[in-house]
């Protein structure tokens, strides 16, 4: 089948959706500790809505940016909550920044990762260390940029940094989002939002590494 960049992104969202479904219980357990026990359900619901929306779209006539924008709108509508606006803004920002020519070559992938991260930052007004999904996204984007010269290393570096970041949320006190009400009781727990960010990053890695192996 002829591959285009819209299909590549659609495959990426499919992989994210599959991975979320698999990690749903784990994420929900994390959320039971410091949140309202629905993070796994929310993320899985949101990305399965994106995947099914894209499966109904005419990917042959869509640009990568259009796929990203469609994913943003669908995710937002299906989810609401705080993850809805955060990821929707990240995806919309990525769509805005996507070039027309080869939007998803190595440099384009790094730019996409940065744009998603930046959109989330803008919407949530969060900082690193607040014990949120940004504690995974920001180091991941930094690591990917650092490896921009070695295309083969981008995603493994991003995932590794994202995972370290997510793990570090264990020793942080939540300053934003619902867990912030728990104060010091949020200590010792991984932030579910950072954990699901790692799930997304890994699905991205699998998608783009697979493409590179073609």
């Amino acid at each position, binding site marked *: 089948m002829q591959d285009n960049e819209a299909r590549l992104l659609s495959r990426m969202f499919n992989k994210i959706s599959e991975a979320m479904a698999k990690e749903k219980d784990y994420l929900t357990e994390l959320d039971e500790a410091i949140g309202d026990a629905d993070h796994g359900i929310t993320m899985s619901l949101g990305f399965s809505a994106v995947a099914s929306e894209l499966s109904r779209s005419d990917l042959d006539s869509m640009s990568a940016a259009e796929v990203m924008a469609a994913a943003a709108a669908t995710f937002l509508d299906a989810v609401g*909550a705080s993850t809805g606006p955060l990821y929707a803004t990240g995806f919309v920002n990525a769509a805005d920044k996507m070039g027309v020519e080869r939007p998803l070559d190595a440099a384009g992938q790094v730019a996409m990762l940065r744009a998603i991260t930046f959109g989330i930052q803008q919407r949530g007004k969060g900082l690193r260390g607040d014990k949120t999904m940004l504690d995974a996204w920001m180091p991941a984007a930094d690591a990917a940029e650092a490896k921009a010269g070695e295309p083969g290393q981008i995603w493994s570096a991003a995932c590794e940094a994202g995972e370290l970041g997510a793990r570090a949320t264990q020793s*942080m006190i939540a300053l934003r989002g619902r867990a912030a009400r728990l104060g010091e009781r949020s*200590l010792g727990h991984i932030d579910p939002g950072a954990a699901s960010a790692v799930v997304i990053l890994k699905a991205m890695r699998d998608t783009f590494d697979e493409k590179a192996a073609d």
Partner: protein
Amino acid sequence: MKTQPLGKANAGKSDVEHAPEGMPLRYGDDALVWACWLYYEDGLTQGDIASAMGVSRATVNSYLAEARERGIVNIAIEPARLASLTIAQELKRHFGLVDCLVVPSEETGKPLIDRIGAAGAQALHRLIKSGDTVAVSWGRTMLSIGEAASVSGLQDVTVIQAAGGTRASFTYTPELCAAAVAGAVGGRLVNISAPAIVSSRMVRDALLEEPLIADQLAVLSGANKALFGISSLRPNSTIHTSGFFEEVSLQDYLAKGAVGAVSGRFIDGQGRPVAGPLDERIIAMSLDMLKSVDLRIAAAGGFDKVPAILAALRGGFVNVLITDAATGRGILNADGVTVVDQKLAQRPRSENMRFEGTRSRSRVKKFLNDPDHVVEEMLDGVVRAHHKYLAPVGKSNRALIAKDGPRPGKVGLVIGGGSGHEPCFLGYVGKGLADAAAVGNIFSSPPPMPILQCARAASGDAGVLFVYGNYAGDVMNFEMAAEMAEAEGIAVRTVLTTDDVASSSAEDRDGRRGVAGNFFTFKIAGAACDRGLSLDACEALTRKANARTFTLGVALEAGSMPQTRRPSFEIGEDEMEFGMGIHGERGVSRERIVSADAIADKILDRIFHEMGATSGSQVAVLVNSFGATPLMELYILFRRVEQRLNSKKIEIEANWIGHYCTSLDMVGASISIMHLDDELTELLHHRCDTAALKIG
């Protein structure tokens, strides 16, 4: 826990034991003190006291509650002392410290800085000896220690400033902190005659060669003891407010993984130095110098500092730690040490150990068809049941509009939030109350689209008022919807409900979350809108209602999501969660369960503390079930609420008892009180007709 009245004298008990006829003289005319003495010191029952004093048992009960509230009876902090000792021992063991001093954490009372300052002062007494050279850093905590300490009888102590000088735009400069400590220990003060931060490396190098400054730095490097604070990189930490690093981009250090600073030097989570633009321009004790000091006394507390303190401990910069119990426990938890929690939990529980093992409940039974369709199916039922009051705006039931609500020239009231709180929010849609409600997934804010649909449908060209609970998700989605509505020419104002007293301190009222008290705020907003007041007036009245509404909740069992059908978390059989939100999330603290009256008292004491209501005031009361608590227990709580208000001569203008803002099937209840004034009273009684509330 042991309680004792203030001013306990050595007076003999015998005269009290003989059930005196009248009130003994030494109690003056204070019936409260007398009642307390009989109860807490002589161990009489409330019934016995009632007959001794010639009043009803309920009055005695009110006296005792009142006495606690007024501080006539103080809860002694022995268990807290025990806890802080346990935490101190554990910190000392886990991090291999020379010494550790942990002050008990109190809910009220002195600010944390002062308490740590007092503890630091004690530590100085114990740790500073004649002949010592003590390096002293700067910050609020340092100054507090210097001001609290007074150690006499020391000889030949030198106190050296650990960093150069800074602008005196704050009171805790390196100069002042060192001077305060020097004064406290009667030591010789050595200042550093250079700025802490200079403009370039060249300037620094030149200054370091100045003989005077070189001598001073030689004193610094010869220090055998160091007293310093630990700075977090949080927005409100000393580092930001002191202006010390005003020209430095902290983002630069944050990006490199810095979590805190000691002596003006940044460190990462493992306590490794983080290099940055400042390094070559700073004149202060270096991390290596600090590490070579024999006794490195750090004083720091506050949850925001936990990552920074942990980093300083990991990096070996600290061998004496002074902190408070909550922070200390946080540090241990963050480093994966949970023995303290076990130890502290064991103590009260050991007395009633029972034979049943750990028994986790199996799946919670629910009336379900498909767990993924609960919201849609519920909304379908709602629309069918309440078609008299509401209808979907479009095809989807996620945006519901009042049938007899919006009209030209009237401000439209739009409320909304996640589902799982029924009858909130949709039960309040109808004539005289909300014009529209947007419904999200369980415990999740609705996305912007249904909110926008509500705004359009509710708009009567006089503007639209959004009123919803203060949660990050709701704020983002409603803000996006407001921007979209404004773009369509609909004027939107927003009032966030923030009635939950437990969720943040009184100073941070705007940071609190909205819980069951939004019932009152919605009611006032709806009445104001229905009266045809301007958007400005509606907003102002709604803000007033919210500002005068106070709620506190307690959960006894966690609720369960339809998808998981298990309790979201476990609450032990003799425990309760105090300070509950309405999303099935944990409360603010886990406590031992006590009687209904004691729970109500605890809630009311907190509310009275903040609500300015005095004798003759009027209030509205809501005793709300979180879902699974029956009316029977709500009435038991209400009974106590009424007794307490009555004993304060505060009049209950109106009350509601039942399911008004729930959290699925959580077992628990909240008490909300709105402090009325004439305007609010009138609006409270304004006619409304909705599925969940009818007035007039």
